[in-house]
């Protein structure tokens, strides 16, 4: 008798109808969006603040570099002793006073630079001031050394290397960023999915144990059926939640940005920053063109198929372990000792993905980790946009599949024994013994 569909249906409905699940599903995108809106709003407010910085320049050459901008007004104080300038700035209620002291050595021009203020200035204000002074001083020094600055400016050259594979496929830097974004998103999604819904499976197994219904159920169905039903049912609930999050998040995001006029997309993530830097090096139209070709160049079909297989494989591998842990313990606090060995390879996979795959997608480390079954789903998903030979993908998936079958067997053994064990906090040694029961 196959009860699997029945169990899946119950698990799914039970999860989806759960009040806290519903609240989480609809509330968390709202909270996220609200958070983004608040942050965006606050950072705008911060930038809006007008500042006046007074400059007392003894050298007379640096002050000209400071041009009043939208948020910062520079007022130049002439011929005044430092003490008098300080009092003046205080009286005017300016943000601060920049004091540039003249050097007696004509080659060095400036002896020291000080900034006086009531509130200590932020790092970005100070580094902005430093950059301006440094630029001006090097210009002055170059001039003194008899170098023509116009020539230096004219000699600056910009290079864009056009990349192409031997087969004639064109790639570009934008491509790489795009690949990175896709691979990273896929790997990270899997990581999040495993953590959130793996835990949910574990809790639901524990709940079955604590409510003591387990023996009634397994006098009707095989434990492995119950376990697989739980894993699949919970996963489907997870997919439902994820899809709602994405749709709701998208809708809310556009609503919020329309209402508040905040261009939320401008909020920069590190990856976007990379893209923006790449953009800065080429003109915008060219950029859009490259983005589109880059997107078309992505191995979309391969990406989708691999995503499906590695996502499911990796998720099932980990969730069967979560189910086994849930079966082995009596309550959630006892799960801690078993969580480490699960979380470690996952975190390792994400680190390898983020640090190594970006650096060298086909290097030894990346390749090896994309074969080890506990890290392969995440690492392989991050590598695939850069083009991984099909045999490697198949081999890696084959290893994953074998490990998955072994893990399910292993988890089912522990599950079968564990669900009927009460009151004992098992050790690893005991779990090993259960395998022989």
């Amino acid at each position, binding site marked *: 008798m196959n*009860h699997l569909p029945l169990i899946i249906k119950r698990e799914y409905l039970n999860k989806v109808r759960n009040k806290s699940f519903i609240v989480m599903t609809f509330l968390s995108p709202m909270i996220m969006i609200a958070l983004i809106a608040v942050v965006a709003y606050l950072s705008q407010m911060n930038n809006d603040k007008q500042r006046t910085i007074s400059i007392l320049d003894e050298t007379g050459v640096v002050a000209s570099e400071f041009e009043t901008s939208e948020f910062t007004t520079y007022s130049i104080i002439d011929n005044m002793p430092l003490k008098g300038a300080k009092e003046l700035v205080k009286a005017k209620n300016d943000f601060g006073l920049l004091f540039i002291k003249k050097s007696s050595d004509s080659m060095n021009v400036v002896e020291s630079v000080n900034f006086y203020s009531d509130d200590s200035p932020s790092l970005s204000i100070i580094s902005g001031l430093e950059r301006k002074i440094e630029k001006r001083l090097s210009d002055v020094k170059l001039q003194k050394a008899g170098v023509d600055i116009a020539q230096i400016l004219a000699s600056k050259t910009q290079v864009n290397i056009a990349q192409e594979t031997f087969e004639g496929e064109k790639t570009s830097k934008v491509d790489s960023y795009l690949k990175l974004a896709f691979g990273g998103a896929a790997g990270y999604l899997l990581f999040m999915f495993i953590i959130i819904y793996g835990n949910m499976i574990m809790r639901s197994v524990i709940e079955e144990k604590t*409510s003591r219904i387990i023996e*009634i159920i397994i006098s009707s169905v095989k434990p492995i059926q119950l376990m697989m039903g739980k894993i699949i049912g919970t996963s489907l609930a997870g997919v439902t939640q994820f899809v709602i999050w994405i749709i709701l998040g998208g809708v809310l995001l556009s609503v919020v940005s329309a209402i508040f006029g905040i261009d939320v997309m401008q909020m920069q993530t590190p990856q976007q920053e990379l893209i923006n830097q790449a953009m800065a090096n080429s003109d915008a139209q060219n950029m859009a063109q490259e983005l589109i070709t880059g997107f078309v160049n992505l191995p979309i079909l391969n990406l989708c198929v691999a995503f499906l297989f590695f996502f499911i494989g990796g998720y099932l591998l980990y969730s069967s372990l979560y189910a086994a842990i849930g079966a082995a313990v009596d309550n959630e606090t006892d799960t801690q000792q078993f969580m480490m060995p699960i979380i470690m390879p996952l975190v390792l996979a994400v680190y390898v993905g983020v640090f190594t795959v970006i650096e060298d997608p086909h290097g030894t480390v990346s390749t090896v980790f994309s074969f080890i079954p506990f890290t392969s789903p995440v690492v392989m998903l991050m590598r695939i946009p850069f083009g991984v030979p099909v045999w490697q993908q198949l081999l890696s998936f084959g290893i994953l599949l074998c490990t998955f079958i072994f893990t399910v067997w292993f988890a089912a053994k522990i599950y079968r024994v564990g669900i009927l064990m009460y009151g004992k906090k098992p050790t690893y040694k005991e779990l090993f013994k259960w395998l022989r029961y």
Partner: protein
Amino acid sequence: MNNLLVANAVSKSFGDFKALNDVSIEVSKGSIFGLLGPNGAGKTTLIRIINQITMPDSGEILLDGSPLKPHNIRDIGYLPEERGLYKTMRVGEQAIYLAQLKGLTKQEAKDRLKYWFDKLDIGDWWNKKVQELSKGQAQKIQFIVTVLHRPKLLIFDEPFSGFDPINASLIKDEILQLRDEGATVIFSTHRMESVEELCDHIALIHKSNKVLDGKLTDVKRQFKTNTFEVGLQSAHPETLTQLIKEQFEVFPATFKNLNDDIKMNIKLPQNASSNDLLRFLTSKAEIHHFVEVIPSANDIFIQTVKNN
């Protein structure tokens, strides 16, 4: 074939611990079979093996003459001692789910549940969540779910725990009725008075071994000690008591009687009959009370466990 269930030399170990050692039982059709034993004796392991929850290391279980197969779960209804329900699920929905797992269709399950809910007068619980029910109420649902698919073999592990006397007797009557309708019942409990009331046949498992097996009446016959409870009236009670004590083994006895007479248990030698005792007594005293002492299930249990 008169036996519904036969266990042949079943053994099971968990690591170094031997939970069942070569245990065989035969449960005849339409009987109520009491599976007794102290805590940790191995009863639950045997029941789980019958339910195919655990597999035996050696030995086999025959149901209706053929070895147990996965599809046999339909033929068995099991009410475990450790039992519960999904707390957040609604009663009706949950009962239907559990019945479907036993192979009923949704409609069948609904119809039969309606019958049982009406019979036990609990129709208004259908849409309640289990966590709103009391323990006894939840036990009723569990009982219904156990018998709903009309299994040939019913296994009850401590079915009365958590019930008040009224509901316990209600459930007891239901069990008897199911037996009369043809079901065979295996009944595991520590409450010896319900063993007396219900069981036709008992087996006692102690420290993984079966130490006693047979019809309850046969077992009682086997355990009787040829002892008689007597109430006598005599003009000289002290001398008579002294005389009896010289002739037989005597134990004190308590029972209700109108007269303030001699009350004692007299144990006869193995070959002596009750008539011998009567003959001896009639000449010396007036006999008001004369009953053979039949060992209770409780006595048998304690005696067997202590002697092993």
